[in-house]
């Protein structure tokens, strides 16, 4: 499910913030059409980790059967919008940072993303 959602919604800002934190990238460097696998280079475990970060940030659970819908960043935004509407409430995330306008798309590509929950002392 490819998506070209505008990034103007509150949910969108929160998704970009969460993904940027996970990927250690500026939220402004991420694009709705970015494929989690092909553009961001996430393997299956990393995709699961990213979904975990989204679940934690949005305080919800994403069932296994919904994983197939989450191909691009836009898909994640759309999915969370739907879940929010279904729940009839607005989700909130502390410290959400609004995504700024993109610079260069090519600068957003990475083949070696790493998760944000690095082991700490």
């Amino acid at each position, binding site marked *: 499910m490819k998506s070209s959602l505008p990034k103007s919604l509150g949910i969108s800002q929160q998704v970009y913030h969460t993904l940027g934190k996970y990927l250690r990238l500026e939220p402004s460097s991420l694009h709705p059409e970015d494929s989690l696998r092909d553009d961001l280079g996430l393997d299956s475990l990393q995709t699961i980790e990213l979904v975990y970060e989204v679940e934690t940030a949005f305080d919800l659970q994403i069932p296994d059967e919904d994983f197939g819908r989450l191909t691009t960043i836009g898909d994640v935004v759309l999915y969370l919008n739907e879940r929010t509407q279904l729940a009839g409430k607005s989700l909130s995330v502390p410290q959400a940072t609004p995504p700024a306008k993109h610079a260069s798309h090519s600068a957003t590509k990475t083949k070696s993303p*790493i998760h944000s929950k*690095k*082991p700490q002392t």
Partner: protein
Amino acid sequence: MASRVVITGLGIVSPIGIGVSSFWKAALKGQTGVTAISSFGDFPMESYRSRVAGQVSHFQLPDPSEDKFSSRVDRYAQFALAATREAIQDSGLCLAKERAERIGVMAGVGMGGMMMGERELTTLYQSQKPHRVHPNFIPTITLNSASGILALAFGAKGPNLTISTACSSSIHSIGQAMQAIRLGQADIVIASGADASITPLVFAGFCSLRALSTKYNDHPAKASRPFDRGRDGFVMGEGAGTLIVESLRHATRRKARIYAELIGYAAASEAYHMVIPREDGSDIARTVSLALKDAGVSPAQVDYVNAHATSTMVGDDVEVKGLRAVLGKRLNTIVVNATKSLIGHTLGAAGAIGTIVSALSLQTGILHPTVNYDDPDPHCALPGISNKVQKKSVRVGLVNAFGFGSNNAVLVLKKFS
């Protein structure tokens, strides 16, 4: 005839230095890495009976663009990666040009990924939400996460094992590396040991076991004092050591620098008690004898011992009894030192760090001091233990390690010629 086995690369992460050069300089100066534990986050330290540890400070993760592995593993495996990167560089090996199937990894790990383990346990119990447990929790706490990540990071497709025998783990990892080469299963083995478990739960556990020093909380540098009358328990440490273990033929062919030859190894159980060594030292003696037999050297040829010497009342005493039973009067003429006096007890890393020390001692003829050996305990005092650096040509050395679970291990190293 079995292949001869040599050590061609060293790497270390320790409380007194990250990197072999800084570690060795500090060790020869008798610097101690034992300091007060400032806090466990919000946890009040005052409630802990022991409040000192050999902690690695200033450890920095490599830039993710150079190392995509470190940020995905727990601190102990990060240490193993750093030590191994140094050891490979030190060895002069270009692993990309080697046959990956002939490169093994043997890692000794006592506690493993307890940092993430404790964090996720806390998350689960506080939230009561199973889906809040991080997806990388299991791959991180699995005890072979270090040996696995070392293989991934350095492209080693040969035998890959993790040995977990508490404090003797990495003597076995080096011993098994040696055996794999002797058996022709590998040309090169990355032999590592690592632990980093100075965490609220593990530290509380060792406190409850009454195993740790408690008398020197206000004087941390004095807390680890093997063979001294004032010792009162071990000091927890953290770190990693890696040795590149290689067949002599392979090392010679590529004109490698050789630190020392590995000539003997023994593994034995006391089948006695989970945390106390057999008091007469007879099983330690048996393990030392087996190692010497494997090495093909007599007790009269031994002239150095890197002792296990954790600074516990029973342990140091029993180790000397065991050594005396094998070496007899010779024990009064040889150098014995205790690396744990400098850095505390690094658990799964202890054997690897002790072996690195031994290799450098054989190579240089310089032996680091046993710090805080100020008031020798008559039960285990020896003429060859000194709180000063010693210079003496040594040709054959023993490295001892004894672990919880009644587990003994001894390596024999020989100056290379």
